[in-house]
């Protein structure tokens, strides 16, 4: 039992030694590798830049939404204030009323 185990172990070692000596030839696969690598690097950089832009856009979306709402409220408020002022000025001041066409 022990002998057969030693025997198979030494057979395995012999196989490993042969496999070590036989290194696969990768020269054909290596040919032009840098060019392909550079192309992929550029591609991945472009996709990273695009995704960074989309992440930034999504992160800034609430800020822009708040800014638009604030602007809308401010505009609404300022236009109604102007209308109120015009109405007040038109009623109380006859000169201004003439100017406003009242």
């Amino acid at each position, binding site marked *: 039992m022990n002998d057969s185990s030693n025997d*198979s*172990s030494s*057979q*395995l070692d012999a*196989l*490993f030694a*042969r*496999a*070590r000596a*036989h*290194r*696969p*030839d*990768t020269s*054909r*696969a*290596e040919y032009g*590798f*840098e*060019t*392909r*690598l*550079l192309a*992929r*690097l*550029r591609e*991945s*950089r472009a996709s990273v830049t695009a995704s960074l832009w989309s992440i930034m856009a999504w992160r800034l979306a609430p800020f822009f939404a708040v800014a638009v709402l604030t602007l809308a409220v401010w505009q609404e408020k300022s236009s109604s204030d102007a209308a109120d002022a015009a109405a007040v000025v038109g009623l109380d001041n006859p000169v201004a009323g003439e100017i406003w066409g009242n």
Partner: protein
Amino acid sequence: MADALAGSGDAFAELAARHKSRVFGIASRFAHNAAELEDICQDVFIQAFVKLRQYRHDSPFEHWLVRITTHKCYDYLRKRRHRADHISVEAMLESGHEPHAAPAPVADPDLERLHAALAQLSPKERLVITLLELEDRSVQEVAGLTGWSAANVKVRAFRARAVLRKILEKSP
């Protein structure tokens, strides 16, 4: 190296040209076919490019690269476990892989048996046996490359050899 660190792709391509043989040599022990070999090597260098700033200059660049290669090969072994073993040429073309020239076939039938047996090992067993026995690395080196303890490497290697012996005894 400084230019590559500054983000120059061309400088990094030069670095890749200098070290590609080492990476291809190791990856070819694990790759199933030429397309997978190309994918592993590209992934290794892309990861190296992305993490270049993490490289500490206290050891040679090639050591750092070999560690990345080892991890990538292990990732591929794990992924392959979850995939069908054989992918048709049509499927490879559809997925964007070019069927590059296949690695030179192993003429030796005994070596073919060994490779077939290695393919049946678990990813961890195959990794440890390949690094120890085919790449002729020491236990300490394998421990450094894999991040496992030396004792763990020894235990895994012992078990892997036992499994491999059983597989080879069963195969004709």
